[in-house]
């Protein structure tokens, strides 16, 4: 009877200790999860800012200005256009 009780006591102590460790593990993992979620939010913020930046760089006004002024591009006049008939119209 006494031996059984001692055994049960040992099991109980083990259980208690494992509860403590798993609880601690859970907390640690949770802190990690929180950190990752914060990073996700950070990336979302960055993504939004990059999207904005991209659309600012790609503003038609700016593209047109660069095309006209730096690259000296222009719309060709009618005499410089040759229309190649496509498959459908041949």
């Amino acid at each position, binding site marked *: 009877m006494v031996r059984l009780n001692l055994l049960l006591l040992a099991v109980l102590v083990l259980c208690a200790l494992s509860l403590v460790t798993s609880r601690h593990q*859970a*907390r640690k993992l*949770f*802190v990690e999860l*929180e950190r990752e979620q914060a990073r996700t*939010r950070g990336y*979302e*913020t960055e993504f*939004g*800012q990059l*999207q*904005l930046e991209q*659309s*600012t760089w790609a*503003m*038609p*006004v700016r593209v047109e200005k660069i095309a006209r002024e730096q690259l000296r591009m222009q*719309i060709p006049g*009618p*005499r410089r*256009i040759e*229309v190649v008939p*496509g498959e*459908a*119209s041949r």
Partner: protein
Amino acid sequence: MRGVSAAQKRAAPVPELPRFRAPVVFGTLLLLFVVLIVRSLYLQWIDNAFLQEQGSSRYSREIDIPAHRGRIVDRLGEPLAISTPVKSIWAFPGQVEAPPEKLALLARALETTPSALAKKLADANDFVFLARLVPPEVADRVAALKIKGVHDQNEYRRFYPAGEMASHIVGFTGDRDVGQEGIELTQQEWLGGKPGSRRVIINRRGDVVEDVESIRAPQAGRELSLAIDARLQYLAFRELKAAVELHKAKAGGLVILDAQTGEILALANWPTYNPNARNRVARERMRNRALTDVFEPGSTLKPFTIAAALESGAVRPSTVIQTAPGSLTLGPNTIHDAHPHGALTVEQVIEKSSNVGAAKIALSLPSATLWQMLSDSGFGTAPNTGFPGEVAGRLRPAKTWKPIEQATMAYGHGISVNLVQLARAYTVFSSDGELKPVSLLKGGGVVAGRPVLKAETARAVRHMLELAVGPGGTAPKAQVSGYRVAGKTGTAHKLEGRGYTNKYVSSFVGFAPASGPRLIVAVMIDEPSAGGHYGGVVAAPVFSTVMGAALRTLGAPPDAPVDNVILPPEGSAVREET
């Protein structure tokens, strides 16, 4: 009894205590214990809410989970409105404790002066925003100063990359990211996110250590695709602005419709405003004139008169109408042509835009027939885009028309329309007689419209509209290199108060390629005051530039040789008065 006898030995004689004293003391103490026990039982089981709350507030918190507002994108996915997270810095002035040098650093981080910051803190009693909607980097710099009583909170700020070009369609959001104008307002349900919240346990440093429960899951806003094509929108805006400035006009509007699906590919207005910096913008600049303002369309309405006459069999395209001597008197009123033309076929009435011809044709019809035609083409009913404040225009019932009104209606006076309505009505001619529904949102593809005309009538009118932009018509400047174009000018006197003035609304509506229409472009210039006022001079060139560039952008195959543009010699172009 031994204790008593021993005490009696040591300290005798003891004065006799009243006999009731011990029970009273004992009873009192017992009563106090009972009171304590009852109170504690009461607090434990009955009135436990307050203490529970106080207890849990020491370690558990309810945290908001912010939800994004959905993006608005154009039909190709280019962003037109994006929400990005920003922070607002706030403080409890009474709790702010910091040495002056730290406050100076805070002021510098917030890009203000220390005295302005001090004033802000002194003026408020309990809560004050030090800076609203600042970039996260600024908030990080503020947080690094670790000033007691200064906090930040997450918010979203809406940015509009297309700025003033698309502001009338997209609209903007107000406080707390709620739509206030335009699509942002009408699609609030779809775009708006619902913030969630959760309960967590925090440790003494304020870090979250455990999730207890999710109270409300956050619901992010959904993305919305508009029918707008940002490239065409830019084109429309650029050309409209240039034309309004060139002709020193009061206002202007330009609409591009997809002729197959009725989607609004571009809608530009001038004047406009920048939704990213709209402090002190006059309400008047915010109006989406193309949908909320009406005007008398003038000659752009003539094709509908002719269509009604053709449809009822009253005339054929080759029927000759005598328009000499260039005026028509009805009772006290006289209708004039800008230039007398003599005998014209019905086709030529459109080509030369003769008021007298159109009036005579209209007078040969029962008023109900003309009314039915205009009503079926969508005049007098709102275009149903779902845009806030769109108007129906005015089309009076046929029974109330006097003959002079029926005659002026033939060339677009005595009726009012908005620009989107007018562009939409031309789907009747660009398709084989179907009125297409218009939409601001991206749709699935070709839609069936409501049949209004017989296919042969629509084709006949389309041919007349091609003549109108030919070298003998009123709008040779609307021609586009490489594409066959069909369209009609309008030059309407403005109605002010009780009569017509010498101010004009110049307009042009047309579509191309005429062999298989892809786009409808409607241009309206309000009160041009320099460089002419005729629709063929003011609005037609805008149409030509926009249509040509738009068709090239969309890669529409040309249906005419590139040297098809034939302009009449200077000074001989046909002008029209309405």
